[in-house]
């Protein structure tokens, strides 16, 4: 079974440009999460999808970030326009359920560098 896959693995863009990150969850997992780790700090929650609906987007830093999950399969996270402080590693995770004891499976992350 394929795990969570993220694309690209690494992206370098200039300040002001747009970047779109993609996440393909494990097939059948309704729950999809986005996290990011900035500058070696803690891994912070961004948002949570249940199927195609945004269950919780309380962690989205500002309106330059737009996440979508059309059809409830893969998800995209667009940053427009990118700023220097957006640099970091963006992780996607999926889970079958959403209970407190449910294991979340993470992708390898996308390392975003804004210059």
């Amino acid at each position, binding site marked *: 079974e394929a795990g969570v896959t993220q694309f690209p693995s690494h992206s370098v863009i200039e300040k002001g440009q747009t970047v779109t990150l993609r996440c393909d969850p494990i097939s059948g997992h309704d729950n999809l999460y986005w996290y990011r780790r900035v500058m070696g700090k*803690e891994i912070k929650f961004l948002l*949570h999808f249940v199927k195609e609906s945004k269950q919780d987007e309380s962690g989205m830093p500002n309106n330059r970030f737009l996440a979508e999950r059309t059809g409830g399969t893969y998800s995209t996270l667009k940053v427009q326009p990118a700023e220097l402080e957006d640099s970091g590693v963006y992780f996607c995770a999926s889970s079958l359920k959403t209970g407190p004891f449910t294991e*979340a499976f*993470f992708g390898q992350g996308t390392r975003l560098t804004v210059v």
Partner: protein
Amino acid sequence: SQQGEEDPQALSIQEGENATMNCSYKTSINNLQWYRQNSGRGLVHLILIRSNEREKHSGRLRVTLDTSKKSSSLLITASRAADTASYFCATVRTGEYGNKLVFGAGTILRVKS
């Protein structure tokens, strides 16, 4: 605010030695989880310990949980070079919209061969 503060921030040991990492958290929990991130790879779930458990083992990993002190420790015995990675503890925060993992900043472990 985020919780799950790990210490030390960085740890360097020789292969074969044991490595101990600690984690503190602020709110009540259902469980605490430990994850590992190897360079260039994603987060891998290592072990979950429930709030009513005090100790749990998985291979060379030993996790303890002290809910009275709101702290946990991860012990890796007989470390190997392949254990070099960042280790994170995470708690589950249950909110209005469901559950989500809350991570700390992590401990960078370097195992020298």
